[in-house]
């Protein structure tokens, strides 16, 4: 996998795409007062991005190894875990989803370094449940934050 990338060119292209995207999203019927500042900032972002883009085409372009540290698969799976965790909160409720997501994420990450015995994992689930219960009680009882409820509570 080629990881050495012209970061100026990538950042410039991304900035130009973002500028175009924001410009396209401006509602033509919106009043001048609401749009004067964003328009000016889109212009600034466009100019900066264009400068970066042209720098990327020049000999002084910055090149860098990206995604070069550690396992990218673990990054991807961890990201999926986080998004799944939040989806689970909406469905199963905060407590159950958090215990499930945290236990499975801990198991997955630990697997990179060692094998986990079933009994060890069961103990981890207990530790995680206590941890989540601690946060749950603080937020529900002390801070009066109504955490999302799901199938159970």
């Amino acid at each position, binding site marked *: 996998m080629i990881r050495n*990338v012209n*970061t*100026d060119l990538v*950042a410039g292209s*991304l*900035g130009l795409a*973002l500028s175009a995207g*924001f410009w396209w*999203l401006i509602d033509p019927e*919106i*009043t001048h*007062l*609401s*749009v*004067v*500042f*964003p328009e000016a*900032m*889109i212009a*600034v*972002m466009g100019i*900066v991005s264009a400068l*970066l883009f042209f*720098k990327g085409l020049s000999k002084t372009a*910055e090149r*860098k190894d990206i*995604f070069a*540290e*550690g*396992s*990218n698969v*673990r*990054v991807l*799976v*961890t*990201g999926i875990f*986080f*998004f799944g*965790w*939040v989806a689970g*909160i*909406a469905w199963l409720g905060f407590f159950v989803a958090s215990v499930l*997501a*945290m236990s499975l*994420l*801990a*198991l997955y*990450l*630990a697997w*990179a370094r060692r094998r986990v015995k079933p009994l060890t994992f069961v103990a981890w689930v207990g*530790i995680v449940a206590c*941890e*989540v219960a601690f946060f749950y009680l603080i937020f529900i009882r*002390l*801070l*009066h*934050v*109504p*955490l*999302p409820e799901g199938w159970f509570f």
Partner: protein
Amino acid sequence: MDILLKALWALADPIVILLIFGGVTAGLFVGAMPGLTATMALAVLLPFTFTMTPLNGLVALGAVYMGAIYGGSFAAILVNTPGTPSSIATAFEGYPMAKQGRAIEALSVATVSSAVGGIAGVLFLLFLAPPLAVLSIRFGPAEFFWVAMLGLTLIASIAEGSLLKGLLGGAIGIMLGTIGVSPIGGESRFTLGFPVMQGGIEMIVALIGLFVLPELYNMAAQAQASLGEVSVDSQERSSFWRVTARVFAQPVNLIRSCVIGEIVAIIPGAGGNIANLLAYSEAKRASKTPERFGTGTTEGLIASETSNNVTVAGSMVPLLTLGIPGAPPDAVILGVMLLHGLRPGIELFTTSGVLTYAFIFSMGLAAIAMVPVGLLGARIIYRIIFKTPYFFLVPTIGLATIIGTYALRNSLTDVVIMLVLGTLGFLLKQIGVMPAPIVLGLILGTIAEVGYVQAVLGGASYRFAQLRLFENPLSWILIAMVVVSAAWPFLITLYRRMRSSGPVSGGEK
């Protein structure tokens, strides 16, 4: 004088001392948790103060406020996550120190600097409240716009590597800040038709996502926590007296950071979130070794932590004298004062003088209490984080960030936004667009927009409405500061080139 002595005597009550230590400890833990802000801590404490005497209630609030702003440095140093927006710059130096096995040293430096800042803020409040209050009401929309512009020039200082990428990050942050209902026109912008996006992107949501998520992804990728074990050498350097000596060995840095913190504090709406970045930037600019910033220098850490703690008592200047909350947590304190029949103004310093001065002194005591509480807490929290295996640390920090983000507005949408921004932040970091300029743009963009549009509206009767931005002498001073600040890197480069070419030409002669 009689009032001051009575105020000091009022603090001799053991209950008050207990409230100060308890408040600082509680504040420290709240501040150390990403997403839980000082404002939230005070709001939670508010109902408990109803049953207290006015002095006890105010003392507890002041101590929690002081502890929460200081507590933000713990998360910033140990997990590269500013616990509160006031400790963004703390992460720039504190986290590299922690990675080098100097976590306790960084926490000790932050503790002593915070105590110095807290005490300095109290002294400003005691001795300079009237003139500073007059200055604070001179800030109008145009001045706010220029303050925001001044803040944006900091990008040159905090952009790691490429200035252009720093500017791009700042512009992205500003644009993220424009999502939602326009602060002046009241119309929806860039919401993609989703009603939930009308509330916009909360600054703390972005802060948590952009700083925490990339760090968690890094830990997961490398299958290890990035905190280094404290070396024996660093442990020796972390002793209270040695750290205190090192902090006070930088008097100019301390004084400059205190003054910056106080000036920012008296501007209503601005606070530790801007002060710490400004002080850090100025410390870097004034340093003889600016290239070492970002690698774990105590100079930057001292500047950030001193300035943000000055703002705690400093922001009370407009509150106690004019009734204008300098920062959001001050609004809670104002509420408690009004509840107890205390009205801001001259009466507060005469008729209710004992209570007011006792409250001010209690904040000074809270700043001192931060030293024992902080130094002990630092060691305990460090050990917990260091000893926790990375495969538990990642989900635990994830839990804290998810619950902290959710609690801001009881919104799962905020949590999704945090995750999306964090993931984008991780990707942007790979190509050199760092999170700090994005957050800075988000903080200052809204201030700049409100200031600009209000000033232009105020100048509607002029031929060119924008002239309103250049009308006042205070604006001129700020404009001059913006110009100097923006041109500074180029001036320094020019100066160095001229100096380096000097001996060569001399040699040729």
